[in-house]
């Protein structure tokens, strides 16, 4: 079980609890604004871009090579950027804060 906090572009703060699956799926299920997950979670569309809070990047790890390449589709990418379809929900990421890029 992990608690994950999303901060949307409207500065709305939403904390959700998940047990399994990807962070993207959790966000889509709860209508988090700015996370579409169009490709269903196979790292093919870059519509689930989040900025991980710097203090949480150790928990999530950095983006993989393909993720980094795909993130280039967005202009506001930084070293804390992740595609959250690639973040699996587990105890390891409990408490993380994600700022939705779009």
């Amino acid at each position, binding site marked *: 079980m992990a608690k994950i906090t999303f901060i949307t572009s409207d500065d709305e703060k939403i904390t959700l609890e998940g047990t399994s*699956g990807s962070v993207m799926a959790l966000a889509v299920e709860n209508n988090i604004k700015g996370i579409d997950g169009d*490709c269903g979670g*196979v790292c*093919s569309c870059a519509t689930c871009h989040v900025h991980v809070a710097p203090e949480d990047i150790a928990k999530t790890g950095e983006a993989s*090579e393909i993720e980094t*390449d*795909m993130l280039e589709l967005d202009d506001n990418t930084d070293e804390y950027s992740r595609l959250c379809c690639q973040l699996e929900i587990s105890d390891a990421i409990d408490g993380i804060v994600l700022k939705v890029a779009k």
Partner: protein
Amino acid sequence: MSTNTKTCVIIGASHAGVNLAFNLRKEGWEGSIHLYDSDPELPYHRPPLSKAYLTSRDSIEKNQLRSADSYTKENIALQLGVTVQAINREEKNVVLGDGSIQSYDKLVIASGARPIIPPIPGIESAKNLFPIRTAANISSIRIALSKSNSKKVVIIGGGYIGLETAASLKKLGASVTVLEREERILARVTAPEMSSFFKQLHHDNGVEVLTSKNVTSIEHKDNKNYINCADGSNFTADIVIVGVGIFVNKELAEESGILCKNGICVDETTKTNDNDIFAIGDCSYHHNPHYNTNLRLESVQNAIDQAKVAAAAICDKETKYNTIPWFWSDQYHVKLQMVGLSQGYNEIILRKESGEGTYGDSFSVWYFKEDTLLAVDAVNNAKAYVIGTKFIKGNTKVNKEKLADSETVFKPVNLLLED
């Protein structure tokens, strides 16, 4: 305008219909939403059917587009296992399978397509013959494969569906032969270079891909399917998969007098020639402004983007469909990403990345018409896909020599054509 007494009826609850229903709520539609589909399963992602879902042991619940709760939460009346028989435009209602009537203020046709089962003599006698379109198809294939001793599968059709299914079934231990009628696989959608690459990829993974194989008859005897081709060759299989294309589900629209061509004709807001009826997803015949062409697209991207446009249009917001199509395919360890429409190209540039990939293969095919970049197919190369997307969107002129040279560091700034 208050919409709280109005009713929107959506025919078809796959990517297009489901996204539309949720987008309507986002756009402020307060009226009722009735979403119908003949498939009894809670709506699910279709792309994984031929890919990860086929090889997994997951139930379809893991691939749901949305949970059952979320429809309730958004007050979307999802009715599954229900067919729509007719549209009455004058009375503004639809007739459901049981004869009951549902009236609408706005109607959205998101009825998609159904697989073609070609009229090959004897095809009706074949046992364990399946298309790939629904979760139920995949369950049947999994069961048939588990019961088969020989695990011999023949796939008719060397398009993406056929090839993805071949890779997935191979992973499950099947012995797979793909029969393609054309001289090369993926003939309709990619350059010859891509066709050769995928043919070799399947060969290297132990899947036989045979081209110029026109299946002329199928027989079932001694508990086996015999598949006979025009050139005299024949094949046996316990399981036959058919992936030769689709028929558009446009009959409801046609019968009610809505203008149809290759699909249901819509304008840039996805509206048909009836002001209160829209059509989105695989069934819509629409205009793509970037390519200035009319077409029908079978893709998740198109379904999702048209769902956004239709929702905005129905809620009286200014909107226009204007996107660059994109697609993907996963086979074995290869990730293919495609952007744009290559139709009409007269030159291709092949770019191979130096350095080793898993397969020695990270490359991209760039389709040009004169100086205009039309499309990019990227194999294990998200970078090419992303740069291609940006260039196509920006109508950027590309230096083809630099692009072709794998020594050129792969960054947009290094690939621009200077005036």
